């Protein structure tokens, strides 16, 4: 490298005044001469410095390439863009390279900048800013459009759903109206039914009153009739006794038999009348209870004793089962009567088998008396019926053999009395084995009778 080229020869005056930067470079890239254009751009001197240290990395490589190259004859000149280190890559400096005459040993390289209108930068910046703003706005608008599109879709979907819901609601409404009408019709029917029921109720009440009146009339009739009947029966029986006692002279055998028959018939009649009286008394509620402390076992024993002659006459044995004393408070006379009915029934209809009586505390509280016979038994269909008045089950085959017939009132009276005392009578029976009547009585009763 010659000192001549290193020193530089000074730029041609035309190049010194050139509006773009003009640089004269040594082959190693050191700036030999400058027209001051680059100094203006950089704000400092550049002569004697390597140009590449002023350039950015990519431009450094381009400069090295320019320094290596030689012009190809006939090829049009090409500008090379170089960017100063730290400068915006959008604002390059474009240089036309001019190589020295190699054959003459001139290895210098001149870089002649393509001059720029100073307004170009401003216009370029302005346009770039507008372009950028437009792009960002366009992006934001597209985004908003998409968002609105989605919102619109959502809205349409909701509208669709609303329409469906509306239809459903309308349908439900119609169904409800139909149901309402049905309900109204049903209510109307109910009202009609209610009115009918009320009318029926009135009728029933009237019937009930009439029945009560009829019943009490019947009871009054029974009482009166029984009383009126008892007096003549007593008279008949009294005269029979006198006849049998031969007060009116001795009777022959035939006469005696006839009077005895008359007497038995009168007794039966009196029994019937007494029972009717009892029944009407219970039904009319005129029975006055007299509670007292009773030992039930002893009472049963007494009843059995009083009925033993009748039993013996029919060859029936009466037995009281073993047991602890059972105390209750009740009406002695009524309990006695109940027991008489139950035991005499057992004797009468027990088919000659022994009759057992058992006394014990009841499981459900109070006391119970069982009267057990070994008779033919009562079929289940008759269990309720035998407590009805004047019902006697068919037993013709042994009916009159004892001469003591029932009135058909014993069980009804016994049950009524038992209920009057707060208890009851029930029946268990097996056909061919026998029957058990069970009287239950409460621990105690009050002084006044309950409803009959």
């Amino acid at each position, binding site marked *: 490298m010659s000192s001549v080229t290193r020193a530089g020869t000074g730029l041609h005056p035309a190049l010194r005044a050139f509006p773009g930067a003009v640089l004269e470079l040594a082959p190693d890239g050191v700036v030999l001469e400058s027209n001051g254009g680059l100094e203006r751009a950089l704000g400092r001197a550049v002569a004697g410095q390597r140009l590449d240290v002023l350039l950015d990395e990519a431009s450094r490589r381009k400069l090295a390439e320019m320094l290596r190259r030689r012009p190809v004859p006939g090829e049009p000149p090409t500008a090379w863009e170089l960017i100063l280190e*730290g400068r915006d890559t959008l604002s390059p400096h474009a240089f036309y390279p001019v190589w020295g005459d190699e054959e003459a040993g001139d290895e210098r390289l001149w870089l002649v900048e393509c001059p720029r209108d100073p307004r170009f930068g401003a216009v370029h910046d302005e346009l770039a800013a507008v372009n950028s703003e437009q792009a960002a706005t366009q992006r934001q608008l597209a985004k908003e459009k998409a968002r609105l599109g989605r919102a619109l879709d959502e809205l349409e979907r909701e509208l669709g759903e609303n329409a469906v819901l509306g239809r459903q609601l309308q349908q439900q409404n119609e169904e409800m109206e139909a149901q309402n009408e049905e309900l109204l019709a049903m209510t109307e029917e109910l009202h009609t039914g209610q009115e009918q029921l009320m009318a029926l109720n009135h009728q029933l009440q009237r019937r009930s009153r009439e029945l009560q009146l009829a019943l009490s009339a019947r009871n009054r009739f029974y009482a009166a009739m029984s009383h009126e009947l008892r007096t003549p029966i007593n008279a008949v029986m009294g005269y029979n006794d006198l006849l049998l006692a031969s007060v009116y002279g001795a009777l022959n055998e035939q006469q005696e038999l006839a009077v005895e028959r008359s007497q038995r018939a009168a007794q039966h009649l009196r029994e019937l009348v007494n029972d009717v009286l009892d029944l009407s008394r219970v039904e009319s509620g005129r029975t006055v209870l007299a509670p007292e402390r009773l030992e039930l076992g002893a009472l049963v024993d007494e009843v059995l004793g009083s009925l033993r002659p009748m039993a013996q006459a029919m060859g029936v044995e009466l037995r009281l089962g073993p047991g602890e004393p059972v105390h209750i408070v009740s009406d002695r006379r009524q309990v006695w009567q109940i027991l008489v009915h139950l035991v005499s029934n057992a004797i009468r209809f027990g088919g000659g088998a022994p009759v057992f009586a058992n006394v014990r505390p009841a499981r459900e509280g109070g006391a119970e008396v069982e009267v057990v016979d070994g008779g033919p038994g009562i079929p289940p269909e008759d269990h309720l019926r035998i407590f009805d008045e004047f019902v006697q089950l068919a037993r013709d085959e042994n009916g009159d053999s004892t001469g003591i017939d029932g009135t058909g009132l014993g069980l009804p009276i016994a049950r009524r009395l038992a209920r009057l005392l707060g208890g009851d009578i029930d029946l268990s029976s097996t056909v061919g084995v026998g029957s058990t009547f069970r009287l239950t009585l409460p621990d105690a009763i009050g002084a006044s009778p309950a409803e009959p």
Partner: protein
Amino acid sequence: MSTAGISTARAPVRERRARPARDDAANQFLDAIIAGNRRRAFEVVDAALHGGMDIRALYLEVFQPALREVGRLWQQNRVTVADEHLATAITQAAMARLYERLFASAVGTGPLMVAACAEGERHEVGLRMVCDILELEGWDTVFLGAAVPTPDLVRLVCEREPQVVALSASIGPNVPRVEEAIRAIRHGCGGSRPVIVVGGRPFAADPELGPRLGADLTATDAAQAAERLKERFAA
């Protein structure tokens, strides 16, 4: 855009190389934008979409390599900055044409990111790509564009309270603007403390530069930026 004051004759741009279909699209697109042929560039994009390429692939495998190639061609003095500028403008227009499709497929329930180029910074296409790719991933992004004044940026960040603020600079002199923006966001937006990600050539050249300025993340390109942000918010 053809505001180039510098006009030069230029050498043929590209050697023919055997490449698969995807690269064909990239090459055709590159040819179109170098030639400044906007319509041809759009046709290439439409054909790629028609052929089944998705938007993400268009961004990462067509637009990004094409723009890098333009930069390389400038270094070889085969294109001028004006050509490069035009190519970028056409690419941005091509991206804009995809927006209808891009935002329609985006769900937008992910994190919110505000993205801005530093004050004075005019290279915006890289940051815009990051935004669009994250948008495809379901993020909500606000792209403020080139040369955003720091006070405006801080005001928006305080108002929207994004999870992420992305800042970019392409040359050294703009790096201090990024640093200023980071400091202003850290001090100016009391409660909210967004993740700040920085990108651009200076940050790619020096991976430590971002952390030194107070940034939480940095990346060398759009795909990496999107990937790192997704990782950060996946947990």
